[in-house]
């Protein structure tokens, strides 16, 4: 196994250190056989962990595969991703989650941790075999019908209760479906002008408010996916102040872009939940700094060209995110590396129960880490993406910071900014 010595890297704490990567862990001792990487001016972060990734396999391998998505993740500085369940077939059985898990291991570029569906076929009618998925080789801990809301309050209550047996968590896609029928973009002035059916903020906030009360009532863990509105932030703030066991994520695109982007009618900006207003963006940034929102999660959602090069109303919602998330976090939070490590590695690893990830870079810890050049600037070119899809909303934008190298259990997955395979 190749050993690496990362010389003069800056740690999230601000200290500088030589980091010896040996036998899968951060080691001490002789570095005489190590390949030396000049890390002067680079920042070493614990490998990033994404709670919300769509890898599309099985079913839509034309849009993404476990392997191509894993490569995009490694290039983005990730060492673990949680693969959402809305594949075809849906990941609602032990068989499918084990398949995804195995594909992840075979690709070997990041740890692919499958998310299990809450309900059979994501239909929102009856519970999937959550226990079977939890005890499978994939050891599923996060369950989500993402793409669909678990709208039935009784079913949501049961799901929250049931997963307590194996310390699971329900990750809710908060969207009251009756309030978003036909919805195309954020309900507001821009939607009115563009004649696109509105997705009102209250459709998200009403479900989060209900779910924090349910989680409180049954004493369970709740995770809220892709929080997008200022009102949701207030609901979460109050719930956390009361001690409800709720965590929440925000996507890079909701931290950066607004509904004005829809003015082009280019569906690359169509996403669910939709891009909101500048006031929402400000509230989300503040909540992320304060910890009311715990995590940045990408909601990386690759789509084939024909699903985006069409009329807005007919396009599928979703955006790429894995290769740009860290840059956007730096853009939004500034070079506060400890905060970035907290929001993009330590906390998501803890929520997902990924014991091998999210550790501070110190002797004996698993060597899951990424080296970042904070001074680099890059122009986003969709054709550069390692994803099989091209639907990045950041095309042509100049973003700060660049991933130079990523290590998964001591093996380089990215070197010199390029995937090793």
């Amino acid at each position, binding site marked *: 196994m190749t050993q690496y010595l990362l010389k003069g890297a800056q740690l999230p704490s601000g200290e500088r250190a030589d980091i010896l990567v040996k036998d899968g862990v951060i080691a001490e001792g002789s570095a005489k056989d190590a390949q030396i990487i000049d890390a002067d001016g680079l920042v070493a972060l614990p490998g990033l962990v994404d709670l919300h990734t769509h890898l599309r396999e099985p079913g839509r391998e034309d849009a993404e595969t476990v392997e191509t998505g894993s490569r995009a993740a490694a290039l983005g500085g990730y060492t673990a991703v949680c693969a959402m369940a809305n594949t075809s077939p849906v990941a609602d059985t032990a068989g499918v989650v084990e398949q995804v898990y195995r594909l992840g291991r075979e690709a070997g570029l990041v740890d692919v941790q499958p998310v299990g569906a809450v309900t059979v076929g994501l239909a929102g009618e009856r519970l999937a075999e959550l226990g079977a998925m939890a005890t499978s080789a994939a050891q599923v801990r996060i369950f989500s019908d993402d793409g669909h809301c678990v709208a039935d309050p009784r079913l949501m209550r049961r799901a929250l209760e049931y997963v307590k047996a194996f310390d699971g968590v329900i990750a809710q896609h908060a969207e009251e479906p009756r309030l978003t029928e036909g919805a195309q973009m954020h309900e507001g002035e821009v939607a009115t002008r563009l*004649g696109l059916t509105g997705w009102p903020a209250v459709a998200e906030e009403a479900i989060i408010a209900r779910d924090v009360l349910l989680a409180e009532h049954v004493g369970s863990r709740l995770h809220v996916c892709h929080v997008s509105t200022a009102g949701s932030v207030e609901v979460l703030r109050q719930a956390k102040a009361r001690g409800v066991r709720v965590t929440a994520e925000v996507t890079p695109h909701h931290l950066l872009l607004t509904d004005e982007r829809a003015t082009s*009618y280019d569906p690359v900006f169509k996403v669910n939940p939709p891009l909101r207003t500048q006031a929402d963006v400000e509230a989300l940034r503040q909540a992320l700094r304060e910890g009311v929102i715990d995590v940045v999660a990408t909601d990386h959602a690759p789509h084939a060209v024909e699903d985006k*090069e069409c*009329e807005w109303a007919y396009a599928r919602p979703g955006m790429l995110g894995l290769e740009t998330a860290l840059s956007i976090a730096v853009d939004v939070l500034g070079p506060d590396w400890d905060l970035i490590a907290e929001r993009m590695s330590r906390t998501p690893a803890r929520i997902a129960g990924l014991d091998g990830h999210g550790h501070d870079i110190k002797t004996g810890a698993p060597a899951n880490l990424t080296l970042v050049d904070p001074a680099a600037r890059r122009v986003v070119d969709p054709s550069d993406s390692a994803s099989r899809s091209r639907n990045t909303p950041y095309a042509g934008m100049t973003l700060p910071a660049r991933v130079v190298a990523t290590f998964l259990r001591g093996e380089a997955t990215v070197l010199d900014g390029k995937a090793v395979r």
Partner: protein
Amino acid sequence: MKHLLSATDLDASTATLVLDTAAEMATLAGREVKKLPTLRGRTVVNLFYEDSTRTRISFEAAAKRLSADVINFSAKGSSVSKGESLKDTALTLQAMGADAVVIRHPASGAPHRLSTWVAGSVVNAGDGTHEHPTQALLDAYTMRSRLGRLAGLSVAIVGDVLHSRVARSNVHLLATLGAKVTLVGPPTLIPPDLRTEVSYDLDAVLPDADVVMMLRVQRERMAASYFPSAREYARRYGLDGPRMRRLPDHAIVMHPGPMNRGMEIAPEVADSARSTIVEQVANGVSVRMAVLYLLLGGKS
């Protein structure tokens, strides 16, 4: 002006130029030979993804009176029903040398998308619940010819504004041309953020209105609880004879068609001397001639 996608593409001077040009085109209607050679050798494609006999025929007549070659491409019985994408259709039309594409489409923004894929001009003939700019132009033309001016007019637009592309285009164009617009209807059907006056009380608005524009209300909106029943809608927001008599003497009543007689408008009103409904149809041809002329022939 390359395309006409939205009424917001028109500033006051351009909009006025369209209306003045339309007035010249209208003089043709009285002649024995109703045809100009202006667009000879140019190809105009009518690309209709929604049934709309009225608008399609209006555009077809306008293009033919300017001597353009007209190709009608309807989504039914074409490659579209075999699943061809809008982009592939656009590239096909492009290869055939379309100088202008007039598009009617159920999805808002489809004309914008089309305009990024073809070299010719794109005219929005109604897209989803977004806009219908030539309807707003013909409405403005009709108001100006009946009332002599647009600046300072009080225009009440009544009905399902939320789902109306006609209302959106009229709000923008009338604001550009200096008229004062009041949107009237049940709160469920009036979006709060169109930056214009709003009233939920039709009777209060009528005595000061120079123009009342009644919008078509689709009965299926009842199923989505926008209002309880056709009867209640007609009672609160329908324009009947007694309500019409609250209008000032000079005021006109407009409707973009097709009408639901007895729902938003009573037959007595639709057939009255105040009604401009048939004129609107005739003016539509002149206005669309003006638009095609200015897009395709005006500068060459």
